[in-house]
């Protein structure tokens, strides 16, 4: 006879506060945002129902399309460059050498700086007249002064560099932790079997760090989709929308132009886009396991 499992209502009751928080700060705002995105208005007073008009409008809005293109490029470059650089640093800093702890802290340090402060620091570094880069180039006799964040072709990449400078610390720490979980005996056995260091790294270390990669890449996709502070602080989306991102454009539409419905529609689009990228990625990698 199967004994009927007793439901512990007390335990459920203790979940209630968390459920209330989750419903009130996550579920309700998401549903309300979807509702607002189907309306037009200033956010105060009456909102007019417009159906999917805001979503249709996005695809004929040249600034939105520029922001979308920038965001996709930003995600790709952030994921590729951050993963590569932070993995490289983690591998280097996983070796035993004098000053290893200092360098770990050194590369992690930018991660603790607020993104808006990063923007201010880099704005001065990039300043074409009295900034560090141009002054340094002049000092070493290289006549290659640039306008950096002011050029429409260079602005995107210069903002990306500032963001990378800050962004590599966290994944580096995760990779370092992942590297330390790789059993030394497996690597030693492979070594005895004649596997070189590259083979050991790509055939043993990397596959064994799969969970770390999933986590790093998924969080990088999400954070790069939401990039805001560093762009707002460095270029404010300019020059001429060259660094406009979906988040900065959403913010302008909602809070500067008072197009709350349209701005919220952009926010909903961002969430959908993120889900479209992240869910298949995690599902695919989990299935492989």
């Amino acid at each position, binding site marked *: 006879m199967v004994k009927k499992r007793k439901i512990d*209502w*007390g335990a459920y*009751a*203790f979940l*209630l*506060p968390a459920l*209330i*928080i989750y419903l009130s700060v996550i579920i309700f705002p998401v549903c309300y945002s979807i509702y607002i995105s189907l309306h037009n208005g*200033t*956010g*105060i*007073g009456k909102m007019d129902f417009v159906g999917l008009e805001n979503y249709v409008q996005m695809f004929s809005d040249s600034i939105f399309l520029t922001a979308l293109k920038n965001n996709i490029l930003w995600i790709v470059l952030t994921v590729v460059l951050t993963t590569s650089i932070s993995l490289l640093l983690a591998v280097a800093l996983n070796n035993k050498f004098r000053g290893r702890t200092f360098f770990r802290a050194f590369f992690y340090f930018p991660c603790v700086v607020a993104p808006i402060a990063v923007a201010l620091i880099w*704005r001065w570094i*990039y*300043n*074409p*007249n*009295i900034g560090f880069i141009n002054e340094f180039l002049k000092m070493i006799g290289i006549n290659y*002064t640039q*306008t*950096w*964040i*002011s*050029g*429409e072709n260079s*602005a995107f990449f210069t903002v990306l560099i500032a963001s990378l400078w800050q962004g590599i610390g966290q994944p580096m720490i995760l990779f370092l932790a992942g590297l330390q979980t790789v059993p030394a005996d497996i690597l030693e056995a492979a070594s005895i079997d004649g596997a070189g260091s590259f083979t050991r790294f790509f055939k043993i270390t990397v596959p064994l760090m799969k969970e770390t990669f999933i986590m790093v890449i998924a969080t990088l996709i999400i954070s790069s989709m939401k990039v805001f502070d560093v762009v707002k602080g*460095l*270029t*404010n989306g*300019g*020059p*001429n*929308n060259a660094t406009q991102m979906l988040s900065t454009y959403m*913010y*302008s539409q909602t*809070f*500067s*132009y*008072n*197009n*709350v419905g349209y701005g919220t529609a952009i926010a909903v689009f961002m969430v959908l886009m993120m889900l479209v990228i992240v869910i298949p990625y995690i599902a695919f990698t989990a299935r492989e396991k």
Partner: protein
Amino acid sequence: MKKKIIALMLVAAMSAAMFAGCGNNKTEKNNSDGSEKTASSEEQVDITYWTLGTRQESMEQIVSEFNEEYPNINIIFSYYDTDAIKDACKVAAQADNLPDMWYNWGGSLGAYYPQNGCSKDLTEYAAANGWDEKFNSGALSLCELGGQLSGYPIAYNVVGMFYRKDIFQEYGIEVPTTFEQFEQACATLKKNGVTPISTGGLYGWHTMRLVEQFVEYYAGADGHDELNSFDSSWDQENVIKALAKYQEFCEKGYFPEGFITSDPNDTLISLANGNCAMDIQGQWYDFNILDNDLDMDQYGWFPFPNETGRMSAFTEMVQFNADMDDAKLDACMKFMDFMETEEHAAADLVNNPLPFANAVMPGDERPHVSEMYEYSNEGGTFTITDQAFPTAVADVLFDGQAGICNGTETPEKVAAAIQSAIEEYKSAE
């Protein structure tokens, strides 16, 4: 059973604690007879005030003096920078969580609040308290928005061209009185390795001050007014000429390298170190020069030679929450009247001069202020573009400035884009 009861009580307490901080703090109650409360000296009143961070030190000094006289009125400050306060107030308005008082500019920046019923209409209060006689009429009229008097004016600003006298002297440049002479001065400076004009285009509004002078020059006073009121199209020859002149200035290197993403709050640096010779600023610039321990004798000003004689002008004000009752408004006004005095102006704790009809001008230590006001009183003013334009339209101009500077936009395209944004704005209205 006892354990379960304790558990449920704990859950209830946790849930109740979560909601303790929720809800707004609009807890003002009416008297039992339904009438609104009136201020009394004993009653404790808390007033929230959002203003600029640059005013923090002076605000703290003023409020400590104020509390000696009115210990029952507690002013709670939040400080923001120039561009952050614009967004913070809009976010708060949409969340129905505006403070009791907030700093703002006139024109389109301030108009959002009366248009949406968020700010107090002070028309009756002003009439009852003789504001017509108290304030400068120009300042007061720039606070009239959406058919309401929507703020307490705290500054009336006029914009002119500041320059380094010693640099002009070194290269034998006379103060320009015509547009042609101004261009000649720029050419001479550039030829001698000095960047003529210090500007920062990061938020667009500083570079705009120059572009609007070009528009004033080509369109004339009436034409510019018609453009600013959207009575004539921006997609017209005069605007294209103005933007083409701006393009020419960019191409000739009359602005610093990479100015388009430079912070407009840092333009004085280039002037102080002699890399640039001119900066388009308001009468407050004297204060900045002194505040940075620079030699005032090295600086002069001239009205931009737009050949209409008018100067660009804008106002700053404090707006009040529409939801506040008379008692709170009374307390707010007590603070405003206490703050906005000639004594505080003379001590540079508030704007000097005040936007009063008979304001006392600063002394010789700030020689340009009274000259600029006198000139604007004689020559007249036009509303600065970002107060004349709604933000969405102003941003199209700002993007256009960046595009023209980088060579990705043409004056014709930018003029058409501005007009298109205006039409979109009008149709949405």
